[in-house]
């Protein structure tokens, strides 16, 4: 579990029911929360304190959420910002991300998802995620290029290591077989999709007992999942 102690976030939401619920839930999850109910109030809060993250509604009284975000980025502030909004067209998303948002969550959302994404944002902002990945009992360090199961190091060939890294980076999503073959071809010549199957087969055996399994989805690719 990521450490949230001492993290302070700014919640900007003009709907009292939703704002109050998010504030309570975030506090329960261990965050310190300030709540602003309009754009101007939010800018004043941002000027007065260096928050670790901001949850921002777009349709705000007095000053639009996107304007608050643009002003913030103009001042050079880099804190992660997640937009909470009812607008969900592709153009809306693009506009939000262009204004400097890091994530975009559509209302109504599940609280669990909000908190999970908030934690991910904070992790990324503190530069942890990219080098060290931990799933089940499996640890992976992409800088040292080492994998271990619990304390015991996992012996993998260079190509097996590469395949595992791709799968880990796509954890929770389906990785196409062609995508893996393409990546391997980058530094080795002519790796066919059949070869990919061989590496997956070997990896699967080596990952037994790690709590992590590679699932094959017919016609779609592979999915790394945590065993229950």
């Amino acid at each position, binding site marked *: 579990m990521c450490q949230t102690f001492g993290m302070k976030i700014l919640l900007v939401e003009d*709907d*009292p*029911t*939703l704002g*109050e*619920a*998010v504030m*309570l*839930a975030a506090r*329960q999850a261990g965050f310190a929360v300030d709540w602003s109910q309009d754009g101007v109030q939010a800018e004043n809060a941002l000027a007065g304190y260096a928050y670790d993250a901001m949850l921002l509604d777009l*349709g705000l009284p007095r000053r639009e959420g996107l304007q608050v975000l643009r002003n913030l980025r103009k001042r050079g502030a880099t804190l992660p910002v997640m937009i*909470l909004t*009812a*607008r*969900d*067209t*592709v153009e809306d998303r693009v506009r939000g991300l262009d204004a400097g948002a890091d994530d975009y969550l*559509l*209302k*109504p*959302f*599940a*609280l*669990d998802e909000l908190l999970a994404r908030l934690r991910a944002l904070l992790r990324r902002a503190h530069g942890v995620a990219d080098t060290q990945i931990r799933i089940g009992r499996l640890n992976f360090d992409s800088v040292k290029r080492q994998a271990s199961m619990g304390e015991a190091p996992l012996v993998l060939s260079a190509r097996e290591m590469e395949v595992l890294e791709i799968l880990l980076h796509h954890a*929770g*999503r*389906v990785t*196409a077989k062609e995508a893996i073959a393409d990546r391997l071809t980058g530094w080795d010549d002519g790796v066919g999709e059949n070869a990919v199957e061989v590496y997956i087969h070997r990896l699967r055996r080596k990952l037994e007992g790690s709590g992590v399994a590679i*699932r094959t*989805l*017919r*016609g*779609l*690719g592979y*999915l790394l*999942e945590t065993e229950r």
Partner: protein
Amino acid sequence: MNREKRQSLRRQLIVRMLAMMLPLFILLWAIAYFSSQYFINAAFDRSLMRRTFALADRVEVLHGRIQVDLPVAARELLVFDQEDLLFHSITSPDGRVVEGERDMPRLPARKPIRPGQLIVYDGVKDGAKVRVAAFALSLKGTSASGAALVQVGETLTRRSVLAGRATLAIVIPMLLMTLTAAVAIAFGVGRGLEPVSRLRDRLSARQAFDLSPVPLEGTPAELRPFLDEINSLLQRLSEAVEAQSRFVADAAHQLRTPIAGIRTQAEAALASARHEDAQHALARIARSTQTMGDLVQKLLILARVDAAENTLRLIRLDGAAVMRAVAREWAPQALAKGVEMGFEMKGGEAWLRGDAQLLREMLANLIDNALRYGGTRIALTVCGSEQGVTWLVADNGPGIPEPQRAAVFAPFHRLSAGVGGAGLGLTIVQRIAHLHGAAVSLEAGKGGTGLVASVKFPPA
């Protein structure tokens, strides 16, 4: 049918033209008849006069008596004709008929004939109309003073035959001209109305929701005001439709924040509630708001599909790639629910014409349905063929009984309670399929188990 006939432009034009032509035609006929009679009479009268003079030349006075020296050949000539009856007579000044017919039509009473004068007049002989030339011949050397009367007459058969022919020679071309004009009008109206029937074909081929203006190129100028009116009506209609779907979208939008409020409150309270009853109630509230959120989302999509109707641009897409991408997106969620998802390609290349965003929405709804109502496996298949691409979404769930399959496309129709669907998924699927000219159908799976939803696209 009757009304249609009455309103036929072609018919109206022809009837009006003929109505105008008919009196003109009768007038022309009369003019032709009388003028040809006039000229023919003039010519025939001249010949009648010549013969009268020739006969007069034969009259001599011998010993105070009038004598006519008429050779047989000349007499024959005066009597014989193929068609008409010829007759003549010579009357001495004392009223005695010297030669020829005794019973001549009487001279017109009003104008007494002077010596040396020749007149031509109409009369009746033996019940037939005749034309007679009369010459008053002055005689010298007779005891009787005055003039002898030389008359030559003929019936009118040839005159009237010729007059009739001359009239026909004028009237028949005129008649032909009129008929030609009628045919030309009938044909011309057909040709002239060709743009109208082309326009009708184009309008009847329209999709129900296509409210784009009718293109004006190639339409006759006479139709412009009419088309302008239609276009302005279409414009107002599409504005109204747009306003309505914008209203639905706005309403759905506005609902999102309060729903998020309720759901988040319920979930937050659920985490801290101690009492079991409260927990149960909060869980119910959270689930209901989730369903409500789902419904609002689908209403928004429907409104967006409606709005896309007029601005839709279909482009060439790889139907297999679209399906695979959506399948990859949904696979983790399916696995989390214990449902295995697979994808398969059959046949050749799977090109189709479509809007990628809408097609993804359609597939997402089909997969969502299979996840809600289906069993433990979802098989996605794309079949490429000459006749077009077919997408199949098959599950091994309970399926839908045949009699109910048509009804599930109706908005808000749901098969079973408690699965939390909005009842709009298949409505969205069908609307999007319709925009692509594709056909959606539901069938039982292999061996009669499960459900297979198929979307059949037209060839790209």
